[in-house]
């Protein structure tokens, strides 16, 4: 029997540490998050090391990612939103990096843990709430009010409030579940290959079929990895834009 497909998500302590009754060990989770941050910083540093007017391939990759996020932010929240560019850019690159690093065979996916995605989401939501209150004071609550007769506006305000409260969960769940489901699927398929190859005879030759399927699925996973980073960033932009502009100027 092959190993469980969920085994790849287990957190193993590398350097056990205990601080005041809490387990703060340096785990494979922390290691891969450090690798992602280090890899991205290195990439950015190398890409802009020798800046040229006509960019090299590496430099144009860095510029493309910059312009992609800047365009996204500009489109959803306008000029005011560009103040939040470093925040959105960092989140986007971190998620993209951990999704892509996780696709290396044998690597660990940092974003396939609910604690990581929930922490990222909390960061976004707190930024939204703080920005909203700084910009509008108590007027931020107008976010829940629509221009309508009272008997519609009151239930709608309640619904808007519930949807606002559900945002942290939906945002973190989407990223976490997509990564978890994708990697589990790849592991299950890999289990088929091992089981078929070990069966002997005609069945061993058949093991090429799931192998080909894995190649296709891996390509799909690259798409999903990018798409989820994009969706996370764009939804963060939209939430920020709502906090900045409330309902006017969509």
């Amino acid at each position: 029997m092959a190993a469980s497909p969920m085994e790849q998500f287990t957190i193993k302590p590398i350097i056990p540490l205990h601080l005041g009754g809490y387990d703060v060990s340096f785990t494979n989770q922390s290691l891969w998050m450090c690798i992602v941050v280090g890899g991205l910083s290195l990439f950015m540093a190398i890409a802009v090391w020798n800046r040229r007017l006509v960019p090299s391939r590496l430099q144009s990759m860095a510029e493309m990612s910059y312009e992609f996020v800047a365009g996204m932010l500009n489109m959803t929240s306008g000029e005011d939103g560009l103040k939040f560019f470093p925040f959105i850019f960092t989140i986007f690159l971190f998620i993209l990096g951990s999704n892509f690093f996780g696709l290396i065979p044998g690597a660990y996916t940092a974003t396939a843990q609910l604690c990581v995605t929930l922490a990222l989401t909390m960061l976004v939501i707190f930024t939204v709430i703080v920005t909203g209150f700084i910009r509008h004071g108590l007027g931020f609550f107008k976010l829940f009010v629509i221009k309508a007769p009272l008997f519609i506006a009151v239930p709608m305000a309640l619904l808007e409030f519930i949807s606002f409260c559900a945002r942290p969960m939906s945002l973190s769940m989407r990223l976490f579940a997509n990564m978890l489901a994708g990697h589990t699927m790849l592991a299950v398929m890999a289990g088929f290959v091992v089981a078929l190859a070990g069966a002997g005879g005609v069945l061993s030759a058949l093991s090429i079929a799931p192998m080909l399927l894995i190649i296709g699925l891996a390509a799909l996973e690259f798409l999903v990895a990018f798409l989820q980073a994009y969706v996370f960033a764009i939804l963060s932009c939209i939430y920020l834009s709502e906090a900045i502009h409330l309902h006017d100027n969509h």
Partner: protein
Amino acid sequence: MDVAAAKDIGAGLATIAFVGSGAGIGVVFGNYISGALRNPGAAQTQFTNLYIGYALCELQGLFGLLIALILLFT
């Protein structure tokens, strides 16, 4: 029927949520393409809305996955 078997069956049933998710994503992309073929000029501007719609549809299925995971691992 013991509780463990009932949990497994429940986890299996929870994956039915992906029926709705699949249908929803199909509607989102199908309508986007039919709209884009009618008015190719406006297609690029609606790209963001397309993926927001996709993400919201997909989420409904993922809630089913969440329930399955809760049933299996708690």
